């Protein structure tokens, strides 16, 4: 299926999928509550946000220079930088490095850029054995699925589903109803083998530091470090918007990232990788490569969507989104689900396949309020909607509906009259519930909702009456 398309159909299926709904229910509260506690405990949070935003804006304005400074620093530390305009070029660069290293087995840390590249696919097609090492990524790799959340890729899976997958792939005689600890320990044993046998390790980067040429990786599992430090070759896949100017800037971003993502002050492991092993060292990779992927970002930088490039991929907008919370990540059919995905997918894959996705926003503004980088997500989604309308991409009915709404807005008298009539109709439906069954369209709306008893008057009418009383 074209990336970004088919939201409506998949959203309906997701809402009817009881297992998925159970998994989403488990996840929903956790992220939101943990973030709030962590943010409330740091009174300086807003000031830190403001500084991070200023740094990112400055970096984006001077992106070419900072990327070149980063490149110089990587080379000075003994590493190599590979530039790629497209995902094909990026995959090609990775494949060439693997071929030169005579690699067979590749371990991978979690990287959304590698998802963008569909790197696993490219590597497997070229005959390499690829092993995802983040537990969530490992689970969905076994299930042959894509991540449904940018920081919790298997958030849509229940424990029972994970256990069933492990039964299938871990073979052996495994007892039923194993604990989460047992499941994690099974994966640990399995992945330890992969780590020790890997020829190339590929990780993503949360940040790139121009000043030092470092690639920063945050994990809780430590899988990124085992991926990067055991094989002879370490490849970092990163997009050009990941760069920040100085090492001294990193704490500002780290203070926001962990708190916004999982409510942690800092994840268990934060590692800065700078170049290959030093001359006197006996361990660590002999080669250090950074793939710098553009994939349309240099165009986004100069567009009205520039703000989206400040994103540090914490996932807070997904966790606070009413639509994401109801349907999960897969319905978006895209690398990036949720609000940031609704902004990025049309930019990465085109507006045509994203029309249903950009409609799936209630504009409640929660995502914007929790975004640590101050990205005006609903405003950017609205810009996509405006562009879709201006380019005549909506359906006939949608256009007619919007035109009707516009004409009502321009005729307040008619609008008042019509809303007064509907207010009476809603009261009637509330007073005589049996009538609701006869009303077209109300049927599916009523699933999961109760129609409240209405007063039969519009807000404006009540306000007017109230004023007369005064």
């Amino acid at each position, binding site marked *: 299926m074209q990336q970004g398309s088919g939201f409506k159909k998949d959203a309906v299926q997701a809402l009817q999928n009881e297992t998925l709904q159970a998994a989403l229910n488990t996840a929903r509260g956790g992220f939101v509550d943990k973030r709030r506690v962590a943010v409330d405990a740091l009174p300086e949070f807003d000031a830190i946000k403001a500084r991070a935003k200023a740094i990112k804006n*400055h970096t984006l304005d001077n992106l070419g*220079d900072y*990327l070149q400074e980063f490149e110089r620093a990587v080379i000075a530390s003994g590493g190599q930088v590979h530039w790629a305009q497209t995902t094909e070029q990026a995959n090609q660069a990775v494949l060439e490095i693997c071929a030169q290293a005579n690699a067979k087995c590749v371990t991978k840390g979690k990287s959304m850029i590698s998802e963008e590249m569909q790197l696993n696919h490219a590597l497997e097609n070229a005959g390499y054995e690829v092993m995802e090492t983040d537990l969530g990524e490992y689970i969905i790799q076994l299930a042959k699925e894509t991540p449904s959340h940018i920081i919790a890729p298997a958030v849509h*899976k229940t424990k029972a589903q994970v256990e069933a997958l492990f039964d299938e792939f871990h073979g052996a005689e495994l007892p039923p109803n194993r604990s989460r600890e047992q499941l994690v320990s099974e994966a640990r044993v399995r992945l330890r083998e992969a780590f020790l046998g890997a020829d190339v390790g590929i990780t993503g980067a949360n940040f790139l530091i121009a000043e030092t040429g470092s690639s920063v990786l945050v994990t809780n*599992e430590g899988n990124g470090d085992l991926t*990067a*430090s055991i094989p002879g070759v370490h490849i970092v896949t990163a997009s050009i918007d990941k760069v920040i100017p100085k090492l001294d800037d*990193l704490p500002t971003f780290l203070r926001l990232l962990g708190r916004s993502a999982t409510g942690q*002050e800092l994840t268990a492991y934060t590692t800065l990788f700078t170049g290959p092993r030093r001359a*006197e060292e006996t361990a660590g990779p002999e080669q250090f490569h950074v793939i710098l992927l553009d994939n349309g970002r240099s165009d986004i930088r100069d567009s009205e969507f520039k703000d989206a490039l400040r994103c540090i991929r914490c996932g807070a907008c997904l966790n606070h989104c009413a639509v994401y919370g109801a349907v999960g990540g897969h319905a978006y059919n895209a690398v990036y689900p949720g609000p940031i995905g609704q902004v990025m997918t049309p930019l990465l894959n085109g507006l045509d396949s994203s029309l249903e996705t950009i409609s799936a926003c209630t504009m409640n503004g929660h995502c914007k309020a929790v975004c640590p980088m101050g990205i005006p997500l609903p405003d950017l989604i609205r810009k996509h909607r405006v562009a879709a309308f201006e380019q005549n991409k909506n359906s006939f009915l949608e256009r007619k509906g919007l035109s009707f709404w516009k004409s009502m807005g321009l005729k307040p008298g008619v609008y008042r009259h019509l809303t007064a009539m509907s207010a009476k109709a809603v009261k009637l439906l509330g007073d005589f519930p049996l009538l609701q069954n006869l009303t077209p369209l109300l049927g599916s709306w009523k699933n999961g909702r109760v129609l409240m008893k209405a007063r039969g008057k519009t807000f404006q009418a009540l306000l007017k009456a109230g004023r007369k009383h005064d």
Partner: protein
Amino acid sequence: MTEARRQILEKLGAVAADEYCIPNTVQPAFVARSESLALLLKRKLEAVHTSVDIVGSAEQVGQSIAGFLNAHGSPLKVGVVPGVDTSSIPVPPGLDFYPCQDMAACHTVLTSAAFGIAETGTVVLPSSLQRPTLANFLPDNCIIMLDEVNIRPCMEEAFSSVQNSDAGMPRALNLISGPSKTADIEQTLVYGAHGPIQLHVIIRAV
């Protein structure tokens, strides 16, 4: 690749950078000395499933190690990284130190941190021949020693200490705040995803 590089940079416009002037004045006030940095570090680490002892003598180092291993029912055999000199640590009966070469075969490792960060409850380990990074990730039990004088209040000061050290930026600079963990199965925390299942930090106040 050079063509891709040229085109990306051309689009981004390689103009002279605007001057960088974004002062770093905002740092968490909670670090401001209501308690000692060592106590703050200890409290933060304990909150993330790490045992911490603050010791005042070399004898106590050995006792702390033995106590930690006994608490977890682990054998009293400790692999030591090249950079840690155990000759000055009086060894309690039963405890055995050995130089560790193969981290994958090591159950308990003893290594040392260059710095600590009180703000975040973090120990900082720059990789080197003396302090191999895999010691921090392969053994089930990881014991890290830290001198109290090397605890910095916030991340900025620890980074600047690393940058200004003789070795400069290492290949891998590990910031460790607790043992390995995952919440990838139903958002429920499980320790020991890949790296150490138990982390023990010994702060030497001598």
